[in-house]
Structures are given as C-alpha cells and as structure tokens.
C-alpha cells in the first residue's frame, strides 16, 4: 500500500500548461469526477483539488517558458503539495481521521518527488499530442 504516482494530476498540470486554464479545467472536471466515482472519499474532493491545480497551472501557459521542461517539473512539485494538502484538508473537514505529520512525511513528500520525476514523460507525450491537434498561439 505504498505511494503511487498521481497520473491524473500530471495530465491536468501538463495540459493546463500547454493549452491554458480553460481546457485544463475541463479535463480537471472530467478527471476529477471520474476519480471521485472510484474513490471512497467524499464526492467532489478530487474534482475540487484538480480544479485548483488546473487554475494554478494554467497561469504558466502565458509564460514564455511554458514549453521548457523545467516549468512542468517545478509546477508538478508545487501542485502536488497543494493537491495533497487540499485532499487532507477536505478529509479532515469531513470528519475523517488525518494524521498530518505522518501523511506529509509518508505520502505528500514522496508523491511530490515521484510526480516531479515522472512529469517530463507525461508532458512530452501531451506536448506531442498538443502539436498534432492544437493551435500554436503567440501571446504578446
């Protein structure tokens, strides 16, 4: 029962960076609802967390460094911390026992590390898809 990479989070972060907040939030909604259906946690928890993450990542779309691999790497680190903390907060608010220190040490930090290491693979894959399917806009 170890920590596993959060694929949906990486997809939403990458797509938001490539296509902006609008499209990112659509996928955050679809992905979040799908995860909520599978989860035993309060319904809507994953959707809320992914929407916040998507909004934050979408801000990076306007950056001139948005295609630089360092941006998704840094964004994965920041958003994983935020995402997991939102989940813990919602679990605590809905009356579930949350061991904050254990959760941060044994889950949040390891999953941030794993996501940070793996996001280049997800980002490059989605970047290829983005170039195949999307438009390339220049923001002035």
């Amino acid at each position, binding site marked *: 029962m170890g920590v596993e990479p*959060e694929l949906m989070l990486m997809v939403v972060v990458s797509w938001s960076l490539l296509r902006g907040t609008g499209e990112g939030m659509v996928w955050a909604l679809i992905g979040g609802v799908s*995860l909520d259906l599978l989860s*035993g*946690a309060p319904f809507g928890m994953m959707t809320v967390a992914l929407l916040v993450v998507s909004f934050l990542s979408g801000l990076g779309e306007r950056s001139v460094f948005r295609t630089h691999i360092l941006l998704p790497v840094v964004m994965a680190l920041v958003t994983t911390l935020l995402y997991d903390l939102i989940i813990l907060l919602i679990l605590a608010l809905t009356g579930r026992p949350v061991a904050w220190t254990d959760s941060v040490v044994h889950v949040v930090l390891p999953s941030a590390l794993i996501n940070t290491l793996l996001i280049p693979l997800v980002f490059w894959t989605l970047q290829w898809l983005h170039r195949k399917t999307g438009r390339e806009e220049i923001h002035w």
Partner: protein
Amino acid sequence: MSVKRLPAGSLSLLVLIALAIVGMVLNETGQLEALKGLALRLTTPLQARLATLTSSLSDLTQAARDLRELRQRNEELEAENARLTIENVRLEEDRAENERLRALLNFTQVNPDYDYKGAEVRARVIGRDPTNFQSYLIIDVGSEQGIARRMPVVTDRGLVGRISEVGPNWSKVLLIVDPSSSVSALIQTTRATGTVRGQIGGSLLMDLIPQKDAVHRGNIVLTSGMGSNFPKGLVIGQVVEVHQRDIEMFQRATVRPTVDFDRLEVVLSITNFQPLLIETPEAEATTEP
C-alpha cells in the same frame, strides 16, 4: 540406260550407315579397343569435372529445397510455440485461481457458521482508491447479490475490511489498513484486548491495550467481536513491535496484517453477519440493501 536421280542427302545417309556397320564389325572383332581407350583417357578428366559440377548443382538445389522446408517447419514450430505459451499462461492462471478458491473453500469449511458470498476484485486498475491517503477496494458484487453495507470482507488469510458503499453490482470495501478503520481486537494467547486502527502506509496499530496485559512480538491478533462490527476470531495480523511506556495509560503494538492488500484478487463477504448499527438515522437508512 538411264540413271535414276536419288533425293538430296540420301548419299550422306548411306555413307553414315555404312560407316556404322563398319564400326560395329570392327568393335565385334576387337579392332576398336585401342581407339576407345584413347578416347576414354582423353575424356575422363572432363567427365569427372562435369560430374562434380553436376553434383554441386544438385546439392545446391537440394539445399534450397531444404531451406524452404526448414523455414516452413520453423514457422510451424514458432506458431506451435506461441500457442503452447498462451495455453501455458492460461493453465497457470487457472492453477493459481484454483489454489485461491481452494484456500477460500478451506476457510469456509473451517468457519461454517457464516454464509459467504464470493466476490472478485473487479480490476486492479479501478479496484483501488485513487488517492494515496485512503485504502478502498472495489469488488464486483453488490446489492443484487445480497451485499449490504458494513458486511465483513475476508480472505483465507484473514480480515480484509468491511463494505462501505453498495451499488447494484459493485461495492466499495473499506480496508482495515485505512486510517478511518477501527476494529475491536484481542491477542490470541493472552486475550489482551484493544482496538486495531489503520495507519498511513498500510500498517496497523493496536491501541488501548491495558498496561497489565502481556503483549509480545509475534503474538497473533484476532477480532474480538466486541462492538459487533466483525465476527469474533478472524485473523487480523501479527504483532511486530510493542510500544510500552509506564507513564501512559495503555500499551500500543504495531501489527503486520496477514492479508497482502497489494495482491488481493478474490475476497469473501460474510453475508449473514448482522453488525450492530450505532450510527445516525441517515446512515442506517443507507445500510439497507
């Protein structure tokens, strides 16, 4: 007297026939031996070379034929190998499933007091909770198969958890290693009681063990049946570490679950066990199948 004119070539034919008859006569009388010997002596090396060349050509065509046959045979063997590999995998899966079912059957025979409903974890991909903070499984039986909330879920190796949510043909199982799970337990040998709670990371902690009771590393932890949430006597795990401090009211023990939650494929839900419901009316209403 007039000479009749012969057709063209007739003379050459007559000459050749005459020569052949002369040759035959000479051969019969042994006059041609010397000439034949000379001819053979001159042609033997050439014949030998021709024979070698012919043999080589024959070998080459045979080799080409053999290669074609070998390729065909190789393709057949590869196809056979692939078929046998697939069959072997299928048989291996059948054998493993047979072992699991046999183990579950043994468990049900040893514990005949309960009605069991076999349930198979739907798939590993969707069978686990997507967050890293919770431990749920999704199984492929639900209210249509008689499953209801709070029913205990077990395997032959021990307690898995309890049904937390029920759909028509699926259910979510809250595992005992989830931090929100709590099970009344006792130590098999000393009968010391306590409460087993799930921990982040998939381990268990047995808490609220009275200081006067003895707890040792290696002790087996069972469900106590207190609180009527689980049947009595189901194996939970084994004590791996005891945390005892004189200044605290209770002892605690780290427990390693006997069930390998990462490799769960088939579980059993005990359908005739009636858990005691001490929940809100809203929760009780949703308990009905």
